[in-house]
């Protein structure tokens, strides 16, 4: 047995309080009871469905977090290989069920581009209107529910109430509150109903008013600020490498919006609007950015219904839809982030392979990184502020 030679310890003039800290550290090591494993979910109100989170705790602090997903995996990438293009919109409505209309748009756009069909302008403008309406509906629920997750119950009532105005508009056009299934290859199913534009303008006025309410009630609330400021900070570079997109990335100061910067897929360049960013990257910034984007979307809808072109709503499309062989990648700015479809066609009536890139999947994959070192109550805040839909994670 070898012994290490005694080291020559130099003598320092040390502040005696340091010894006390050392003694405390020693005490903490002796009192260490080991980490505790806490299982959150799969059925937990903060997880919006069936996300399971296994966190390892040291006292009140999270040491490691492991999200376990797949409780709602429906295998859409396999199912779409057994269906024709028109049948698939029904399935992809159920990916992100809060903004189903926005889900349909990129898939339909991919099929249209491969077939070299372009939807008429009126159809494109109605598509844009409904996409923005579903963005407003999704965000209004978030604006209310985020308050609920940090302990304020009032905003939840406002959020659910105001979302209903928008869902009524979507229902009036498409017939479905959540699953419109309204896009067709080459256009949309039906034109706007009589009197809808006046209703829409009224509802948008209510939405803008409700955004002011949230600004006063939540953003300006000192308790809310204390619960969210500097909680769950995501630096821009880390967020991007995890594939975090949409409002979550813009809240980290990244000025990138596919509606403006991506390949044009809807006539956003004809509207007057602004991309909002926030430099902080914390939960508060994510709330703030979504609040501004709700306002911006409401203003866009007002512009859209004012400038709605007349004309047909469907292009000429063959009765049996066969998409020529080729590959198309269309990514769009969904309410939750970047939603994309990589469609591989071999000239049949259905796709050969569809890769569905859903926003929440990547947004949630950063959880092990961002939850490390936070306190247990902040886990709930961060989960709520990242804002995911389970169907969008599990596909």
């Amino acid at each position: 047995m070898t012994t290490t030679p005694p080291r020559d310890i130099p003598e320092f003039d040390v502040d005696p309080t340091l010894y006390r800290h050392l003694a405390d550290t020693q005490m903490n090591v002796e009192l260490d009871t080991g980490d505790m494993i806490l299982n959150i979910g799969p059925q937990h109100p903060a997880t919006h469905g069936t996300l399971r989170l296994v966190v390892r705790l040291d006292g009140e602090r999270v040491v490691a977090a492991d999200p376990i997903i797949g409780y709602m995996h429906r295998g859409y990438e396999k199912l779409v290989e057994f269906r024709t293009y028109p049948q698939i919109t029904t399935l992809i409505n159920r990916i992100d069920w809060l903004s189903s209309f926005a889900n349909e748009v990129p898939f339909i756009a991919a099929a249209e581009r491969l077939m070299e069909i372009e939807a008429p302008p009126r159809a494109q403008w109605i598509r844009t209107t409904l996409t923005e309406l579903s963005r407003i509906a999704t965000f209004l629920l978030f604006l209310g529910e985020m308050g609920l997750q940090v302990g304020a119950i009032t905003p939840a009532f406002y959020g659910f109430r105001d979302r209903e105005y928008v869902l009524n508009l979507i229902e009036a056009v498409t017939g479905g509150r959540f699953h419109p299934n309204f896009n067709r290859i080459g256009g949309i199913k039906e034109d706007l109903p009589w009197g809808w534009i006046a209703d829409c303008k009224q509802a948008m006025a209510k939405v803008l008013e409700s955004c002011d309410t949230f600004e006063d009630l939540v953003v300006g609330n000192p308790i809310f600020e204390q619960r969210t400021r500097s909680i769950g900070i995501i630096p821009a570079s880390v967020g991007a490498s995890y594939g975090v997109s949409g409002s979550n990335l813009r809240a980290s100061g990244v000025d990138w919006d596919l509606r403006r910067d991506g390949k044009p897929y809807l006539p956003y360049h004809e509207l007057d609007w602004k991309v909002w960013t926030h430099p902080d990257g914390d939960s508060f910034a994510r709330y703030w950015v979504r609040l501004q984007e709700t306002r911006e979307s409401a203003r866009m809808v007002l512009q859209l219904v004012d400038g709605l072109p007349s004309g047909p709503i469907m292009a000429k499309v063959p009765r049996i839809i066969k998409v020529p062989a080729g590959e198309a990648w269309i990514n769009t700015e969904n309410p939750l982030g970047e939603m994309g479809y990589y469609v591989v066609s071999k000239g049949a009536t259905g796709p050969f392979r569809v890769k569905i890139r859903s926003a929440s999947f990547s947004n949630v994959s950063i959880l092990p990184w961002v939850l490390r070192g936070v306190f247990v109550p902040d886990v709930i805040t961060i989960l709520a502020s990242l804002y995911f839909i389970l169907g969008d994670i599990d596909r």
Partner: protein
Amino acid sequence: MADAPTTEADGPTAPALDERAQQVLARLEAELGDALVEHGSALGDLVVRVRPDAWRRAAEACRQALDCDFLSFVSGIDWMPTPVVEEDAGGDTSSPVQPREMTFGVAGSAGRLQVFAHVESTYAPHWAVTLKTDVDEAAPRLESWVPVYAGADWHERETWEMYGVVFDGHPSLRHLYLPAEFEGHPLRKDFPLLARDVKPWPGLVDVEPMPGESEAGETAGEGEDAS
């Protein structure tokens, strides 16, 4: 060799690369040299195929030389033709009929299995590229992208369970969606969709002929080529 024409599956009117994509291609060619096997255009977007041994180097090149800091996805493709269900056997006939011979998509492929990924840049010109690489069918292995893009973690776990591609250097390659004891790779084409095997899709039974159409003739475009 990078000027090689794209494959026939590209379609007769494959649109040329736009200016932005050509700049990306020029940079990638300078970075990767002959590790870039082939390139093609998916509706104007750049698709490049790299040698499997340069898979991680390609990611590093995208990240550093192209500023592509955003990982969109990593996934796989199985180019094997969809197994045909014999109609006489009373099997499912509602699914779209795919070509029976093996054809490859944009930028070609050396074999049945491919892994592909898409990266984008959050900076001003917003460059983007789709990368493909061939993996061996018998022993599919690739280098992991996790050291380059942290978000590749979940995507590679999904690709591993769905296609059976092993990623070397991945921190914990375990099931993501499926239960731990699941066997098989569901997104491979030879993995049957069990729901359709157990009970054929009944939709065709409900389709009545359109007014003026013959009874035996067209059935309103439900999957099958009616002509």
